[in-house]
């Protein structure tokens, strides 16, 4: 069944998705977030995805950089299913969340399909010009048992969440692209 669903998903994507190159230099994401890129990325656009912008180096589902810009109080951090189409839990941002709760929210979102998440590190950092959080994690993907590594940055500004999360297979790909994801995260600026 998973195979059938995957094929259908691929077909759906092949007909609707588009990929645009994100050139090096300064890039705005949403109204209040700007980042600077040292290397070019690919921006995946497709109907029904969001609220994060999805960037990739190797193509989905190999690696993905999720950029959240201005998630409001009560807004889910993933695509929500239509009412009645299933009972998967929604993971929504609350403006009063503490850093560990923000990390837990991303953990919940990333494990909705039964994947296994392990928090490796959670620390305070400066992100987007203010006090934020950084976390490292490992993820065992349920659908294919692939072991991924990931990093995430986040900060709440004026009640809105800004975050950048990158993940890729632990072997080869994470070490290849994590430095670029770190550089983008460290370059983030949030308009106050």
């Amino acid at each position, binding site marked *: *069944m998973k195979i*059938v669903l995957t094929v259908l998903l691929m077909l759906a994507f092949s007909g609707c998705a588009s990929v645009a190159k994100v050139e090096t230099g300064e890039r705005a994401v949403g109204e209040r977030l700007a980042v600077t890129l040292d290397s070019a990325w690919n921006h995946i656009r497709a109907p029904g995805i969001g609220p994060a912008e999805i960037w990739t180096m190797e193509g989905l589902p190999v690696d993905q950089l999720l950029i959240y810009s201005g998630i409001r109080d009560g807004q889910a951090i993933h695509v929500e299913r239509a009412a009645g189409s299933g*009972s998967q*839990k929604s993971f929504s941002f609350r403006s009063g969340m*503490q850093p*560990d709760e923000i*990390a837990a929210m991303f953990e919940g979102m990333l494990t909705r399909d039964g994947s296994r998440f392990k928090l490796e590190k*959670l*620390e305070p950092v400066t992100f987007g010009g203010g006090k934020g*959080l950084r976390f490292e994690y490992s993820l065992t993907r349920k659908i294919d048992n692939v072991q991924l590594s990931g990093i995430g940055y986040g900060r709440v500004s004026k009640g809105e969440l800004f975050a950048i999360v990158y993940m890729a297979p632990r072997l080869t790909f994470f070490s290849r692209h994590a430095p670029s994801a770190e550089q983008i995260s460290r370059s983030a600026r949030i308009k106050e």
Partner: protein
Amino acid sequence: MACGPAFAQTGWQAPARFVRPELSTDEGGLWSLMEREETRLRRSPFSIRDPRLRDYVQDIACRLAGEHCPDVRVYLVQTPLFNANMAPNGMMQVWTGLMLRVDNEAQLAAVMGHEIGHYLARHSLERLRDVKSRAAFGQFLGLLGVAGAVGQLAVLASAFAYSRDQEREADQFGMILMRQAGYDPVEAGKVWANLLLEIKARPDGDAGRNSPMFASHPSPESRQETLQQLADASPGGVTNEDAWRERTRPFMREWLTDEIKRGQHEESIALFNRMIARVPSQADFVYARGEVYRLRARGDDLNAALADYQTAVSCGGEPPETHRGLGAIHRQRNQLPEARASFQRYLELAPAAPDAPMIKSYMEEAGT
């Protein structure tokens, strides 16, 4: 379920052990497909490899399966959902979400017996042939050739639910196997009654496609009723609750953590309420409920979380995270000395915690 108790008295005999079917047959193709799946499962990082727990559950399966024991291979899968299933080649999966939810060995035996019932009645093959007989599918699959067709059919068959009749039959066989193995059949109905509590707690009251078992099975209400009727026909037997608790204790904290992470707050609270009612002094259960309240953070949840954390501490043997939760609530309430003390205790108990750098920053904020 008029046929239930009467059926149970007919002296049903399990079939003889199955012989591996020829690969050229549809059943052979199905086995081949399942063997590939079993190879994948054997290597899966989600498989629990602890030999003591695996042997323990395998032994329960063997007691139920009787002479089919050598053909039943149990795999414990770390996934926090209520599910078990059995493939026609003898591969059985038992998920940790099921093991968290059963109160004793007899309740697990009820679910495993049901799955062995499907296996003995070869219901998967029936499903495969049912799908195959559909003309539209037949024409479509004919394009794929024989080998491809068998594989595709198996995939398609897995998308189809067992029929209600097959489910009833598996329930009946399962009850017979339970009795033969010496388990109290009354426990079978309790499995579904307990699950109903969780389902009813859901905000949408949806019976739930959250559990793979619900996607294809009769409603828990009707199942509970049916099983109760079957059990009434022949009461008595053991539950082995103490043995179950003892064997699963080393894994309980991890399974509770997985349940908390699911983010299904209402279901988890209903589950933990039931577990606490059964064993009130178990700090892990009380902590788990408090953690869910804290993460939900609605209405009076933080007060409820605080009370649970404090109870867990008073029970003794609480998880270190209990103190982290206490610290977080105190911090939110600007009760800085209390926050600092709780975070300090957390780090004393879990100095290598991955969130230690963040917790230390909280403590610095709180001052001395």
